[in-house]
């Protein structure tokens, strides 16, 4: 009888470990990048609504793109005071690392990734004075960085589709997909970010 109990306990422990591993599989796999090129503009990722963890935009005559490999998450979200949300794009322009941070009011408090569906269909005017846009550059050669706040003179970011992603009966992440475009001036130079698109899977590692 005692042997049976020990055996049952061992089986239960093994089952818990196996189910934990399966959960990890889902998590890591959904956080990976799936790059599908745009047919019309192959240097940009195609606009998708699947949580492929990509973004891309024209940046003057170059491209601001998410990394396809590496440890960096392409996009992060964090909840801020006064019902604001911070969205950070981590990518590169040519060989330079670039970060674009947008803090915007979203009308209601979003405290977890599951509440992100509240953004579905919303457009944020980036010229709104309550919106703060910051860009940072990292030069990978001499390891220097510079950061500055910019004032877009036009443009917006649209959350075209926010879905909860349910796999095998469990909601595992929110898929946030949309488009962004804006222009700004800095140090007398004009910068245009156009044809921007993003498709990000958001779970508790991406939203904090």
């Amino acid at each position: 009888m005692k042997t049976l109990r020990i055996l049952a306990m061992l089986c239960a422990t093994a089952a818990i470990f196996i189910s934990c591993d399966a959960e990890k599989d889902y998590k890591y796999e959904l956080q990976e990048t799936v790059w599908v090129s745009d047919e019309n503009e192959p240097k940009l990722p195609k606009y998708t609504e699947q949580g492929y963890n990509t973004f891309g935009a024209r940046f003057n005559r170059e491209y601001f793109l998410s990394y396809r490999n590496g440890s960096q998450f392409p996009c992060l979200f964090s909840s801020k005071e006064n019902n604001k949300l911070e969205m950070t794009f981590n990518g590169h322009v040519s060989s330079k690392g670039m970060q674009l941070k947008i803090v915007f009011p979203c009308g209601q408090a979003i405290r977890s990734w599951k509440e992100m569906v509240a953004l579905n269909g919303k457009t944020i005017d980036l010229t709104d004075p309550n919106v703060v846009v910051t860009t940072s550059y990292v030069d990978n050669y001499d390891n220097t960085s510079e950061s500055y706040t910019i004032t877009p003179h036009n443009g917006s970011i649209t959350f075209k589709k926010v879905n909860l992603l349910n796999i095998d009966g469990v909601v595992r992440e929110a898929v946030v997909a949309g488009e962004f475009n804006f222009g700004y001036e800095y140090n007398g130079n004009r910068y245009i970010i156009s044809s921007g698109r993003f498709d990000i899977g958001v779970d508790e590692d991406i939203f904090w």
Partner: protein
Amino acid sequence: MKKNFLAVIILATLSVPAAKAQQWGIGVNAGTNYCEFETEVSFDNLRQGYRHENEWYYEDGSYGVGDMRSRYFSVTPEYRYSNNISFLAGLQLTVASSNFTSDKGYFYWMYDKQDTELSYCTIHKFRQTNSYIGVPLAVKFVVRGTGYTSVFFQGGVTPSVRVNTNNDIQIRDLAMEKVKSKISDQLGTPENFCMPIYASVGVQFDFGLSASFQFPYTILGSTMSSFAEDSQLGFGIQLAYIFSKSVKE
């Protein structure tokens, strides 16, 4: 060179009087074809599930791996117009099985889409089996060899009608068995009618009764699977046993 070849064919065709050579035979045939196809991201319901480690290789978004095998059995009465030319017609049963999976061994399939929720199911494999009844029509041109063997060329078409489809969906999580029928409906069926065209080269053995084998290359008029994009079945092999009967004039 071309002219010489044409002259040989014409002479061979006309060298034997048709009346003497008229003969009926019945061929019992069995054959198989196999092909692999790579499906691009054309399925609306398919979510890719792996990272593009080599950006160039996966630049086109290719994802899954599929294969198709068709097996067929036919009975074909054969009318020998001359020693070189025969006409065949008959009845054929074809069973075409196609599989689809990813190189990881599983993939995610969207079975439901609500306003703000996408529902996927993890699937190991799709297997679709389609059965067809067809009428094979063919022309055979025999180049006489030495002794009891001869080489022949055959070309034909098999107008076929689909009579049955079976979708087998292998799901990872048994708790999701309830959505199988919905996924099967999404997979759908191929077109009801298809017309494989083939050309083959073969060898025939005549020892009173005759047998042959041939290697047909088949092109499908439409695919024999609802998820295969390739319309070619490629090379296959066909074996035949021919019962012959001479007709006295």
